[in-house]
């Protein structure tokens, strides 16, 4: 019999708040965090709006969360890493865990060797200003980039630890150092599916006895020039007039002609803990992790090079991989589809992806699909990519604990098959919630969360 695992802490970072309580309040109040991007001038970008993680009136910064002795290290953190460090710190506190963060001599709740760390990450874009200020020193007489000049002297204009700033595993690396996690640690990079795949790996690690608890989730920031440019090129983002006062109205999950989504940043890190450990230390638990599943969607027979035309997602109608992943998670949980009370899907707002997702959900739930509420989050926070699944997970767990569905924003009207139109927050019975997502390159993941007795 495998050990049961529960979520004992949530750290969520997003445009609608820092910390799960703030996030939850905004979601229930129907307050979107999408606004004009402040961190650089986006006025000429296809999409000038985004969901930046802001606390008060300034961007969330790791400096305000790390121990004093660790502040210097924040200089070699990419934005993604900063947000992960913040989320991890919030998660540990929320779970009532004392970690190495409290000092090297602190008595930790769980021994270091028994704590794992699985944080999904994205393909972190190098800061363009930082890199270009070095690249321009290698311009030849014709104004062209010279590899020889770069090799000779240009390279020296980058900071020595430049590479370490952008390795995707630096999110987990900093978190393991700060909190002293010496158990298994991994960095899964499967875009939107990263967070849920990480949660699945944490579960397996705990089940096989290699850890008692894990920091688990995913974080990414696409609020940077390369991030926005790249994803605009595959049709992810909407063109929104710069003077739009309510930009969230343009993000319309499951609407046939939805103009697209907007970039966002953040995600979630939870503490997944063996139930016995949580019970014995008297910890509160949000929800139980009942089942996990993942699958790969197949691209069309023409090959994957054509994914560009389709937001990178599956090339054919329904996302079969998503259906496979959900069915695997339901089997793992030992339940059937009719026992799901709500679904937190990707709902990106980019029409081809939403269409594939809806098709995948329909394969599992059939005609009953439109009776199951879909919790759509992109009109609140934008597309979080590697943070998306984990943010959805954080919201799903909180919804179970509160027995409440958050409000839904929608600027139009979704496909009739999707129970996703605008609505107020509502109290309801939530025994089991499905969190699921497909992804940019076809990986799909699903988890089933259950209410605790």
């Amino acid at each position, binding site marked *: 019999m495998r050990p049961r695992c529960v979520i004992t802490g949530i750290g969520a970072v997003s445009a609608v708040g820092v910390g799960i309580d703030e996030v939850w309040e905004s979601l229930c109040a129907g307050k979107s965090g999408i606004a004009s991007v402040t961190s650089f001038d986006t006025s000429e970008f296809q999409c000038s709006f985004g969901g930046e993680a802001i606390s008060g009136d300034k961007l969330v910064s790791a400096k305000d969360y790390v121990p004093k002795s660790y502040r210097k290290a924040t200089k070699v953190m990419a934005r993604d890493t900063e947000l992960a460090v913040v989320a991890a710190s919030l998660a540990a506190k929320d779970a009532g865990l004392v970690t190495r963060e409290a000092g090297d001599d602190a008595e930790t709740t769980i021994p270091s060797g028994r704590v794992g760390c699985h944080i999904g990450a994205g393909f972190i874009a190098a800061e363009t200003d930082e890199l270009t200020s070095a690249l321009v020193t290698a311009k030849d007489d014709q104004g062209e980039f010279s590899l020889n000049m770069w090799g000779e002297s240009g390279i020296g204009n980058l900071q020595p630890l430049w590479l370490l700033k952008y*390795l995707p595993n630096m999110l987990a690396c900093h978190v393991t150092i700060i909190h002293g996690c010496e158990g298994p640690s991994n960095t899964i990079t499967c875009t939107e599916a990263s967070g849920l795949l990480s949660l699945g790996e944490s579960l397996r690690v705990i089940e096989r006895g290699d850890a008692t608890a894990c920091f688990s989730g995913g974080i990414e920031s696409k609020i940077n020039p390369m991030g926005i440019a790249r994803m605009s090129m595959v049709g992810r983002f909407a063109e929104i007039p710069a003077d739009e006062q309510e930009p969230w109205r343009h993000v319309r999950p499951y609407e046939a002609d939805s103009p697209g989504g907007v970039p966002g940043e953040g995600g979630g890190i939870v503490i997944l803990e063996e139930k016995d450990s949580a019970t014995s230390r008297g910890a509160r638990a949000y929800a139980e992790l009942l089942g996990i599943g993942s699958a790969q969607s197949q691209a069309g027979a023409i090959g994957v090079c054509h994914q560009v035309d389709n937001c990178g997602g599956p090339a054919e109608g329904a996302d079969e991989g998503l259906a496979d992943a959900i069915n695997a998670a339901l089997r*793992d949980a030992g339940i059937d589809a009719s026992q799901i009370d709500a679904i937190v899907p990707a709902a990106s707002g980019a029409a081809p992806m939403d269409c594939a997702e809806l098709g995948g959900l329909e394969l599992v739930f059939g005609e009953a699909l439109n009776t199951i509420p879909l919790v759509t989050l992109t009109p609140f926070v934008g597309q979080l990519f590697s943070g998306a699944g984990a943010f959805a997970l954080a919201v799903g767990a909180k919804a179970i604990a509160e027995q409440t569905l958050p409000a839904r924003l929608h600027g139009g009207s979704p496909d009739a098959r999707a129970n996703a139109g605008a609505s107020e927050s509502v109290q309801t019975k939530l025994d089991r919630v499905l969190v699921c997502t497909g992804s940019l390159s076809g990986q799909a993941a699903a988890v089933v969360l259950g209410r605790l007795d």
Partner: protein
Amino acid sequence: MSSGRVVITGAGWVTPLGHELDAVWQRLVAGECAIGPVEHFDASTFATTFASQVKGFKLSDHLGDRAECHECASLATKYALAAAVSAWHNAGFGPTMAAAGGSRSSEHVDPKRFGIYLGSGEGRMDLDNFVRTNYAGWDDDARRIDYKKWAKAAPKNLVAARELEQEPSMCIAHVSAELGCRGPVSNCMTACAASTQAVGEAYELIRRGDADVMLAGGSHSMIHPLGMTGFIRLTAMSTRNEDPSTASRPFDSTRNGFVMGEGAGMVMLESLEHAQKRGAPIIAEVAGFGSSADAYRITDIHPQGLGAAAAMARALKQAGIDPNAMDDSGRPLVHWINAHGTGTKENDKTETAGVKAVFGESAYKVPFSSVKSMLGHLIQAAGAVELITCLQAIKTGVIPPTTNLNSPDPQCDLDHVPNEPRDCNPMGGVDVCLSNSFGFGGQNNTICVRKFAG
């Protein structure tokens, strides 16, 4: 009821020493070296001008006409495709599902019970167009980018497919389109430990019952201007430009850094029951997997190699092997440790300390060598390629040497198999190997493989 045992039934690789399983092995045993001047780009003014490169590679040699379907893929993804298809054939699965006309079933494996777990790296940056975009946006007076100008330049210069193919998850999309795997999926990036971790977690997925068959491994190429740049700034690479072929010197007192390599390694993992049912050739059994984090510093390895020791100890425990025990002939139960052995000052010293922490006095009796001396460091692909050398050692009874090892560092005083291979057949062959991989950022992963004994 499943026994929970997992075996390896196929392997394939694309390495700087060749692309065929046995041919590469013969070169490794012969102590050949693949390292030479960088040919992928003009690196003549770089602090390091050499690397270990894949040569004579054409995807169509491995995929035939199907290569066209992957034309836009990054170089490393093409290596991954070739290695994956080799592993598939090596395991006796017959035509790939794509080659069979996009068929979604195979007589040998249920696609939904066939998963994929890779530790593949990011695709190479489209440097020319990236630089063009950034130059166009640069405001020389303000010393920063004018993003109004940049935003107009980006769509004119950047190519959508090339940008998308840099995503580290694209390799899986290509490989699974070829092999038709629809089961559990993941790609991890834990730097130099990635593909060992991928194989380890794939093994755990089968043990849990989530899949019958997994393709696992990794691919990577950082032999491009910004890839080399990053490691040059970290001063992690050897700068022995005058003598590339002896530059990779694991455990030698004159070592001065690793040598950048590229390639891919893939294995087919299978539950024992599944392999036996289809009468598959069993190459070896996965006996254990251990994973840990240093949680120490972003730049340094724990000086006592504690994280490395934890990973090795965990793998051995799972395999049920006592590191201090000897067989009747006085031989330790582990017959070869495939060292991470990068040739950096720090790694080789701390890895040695880690082995001693686990094996105690027996450490001196366990052969401990690094094929990076010949292949260079394949970064995320290193672990899987090196695991395959363990499979070959088990198959042939021979341990490959650490070359360029003429004056061992006194702090690296284990049994290094210097310069000449060791034929273990007179003492009963090679039954059990450990393969170590440690990554920047503090991830440590060790796999234990054992000769299949029924």
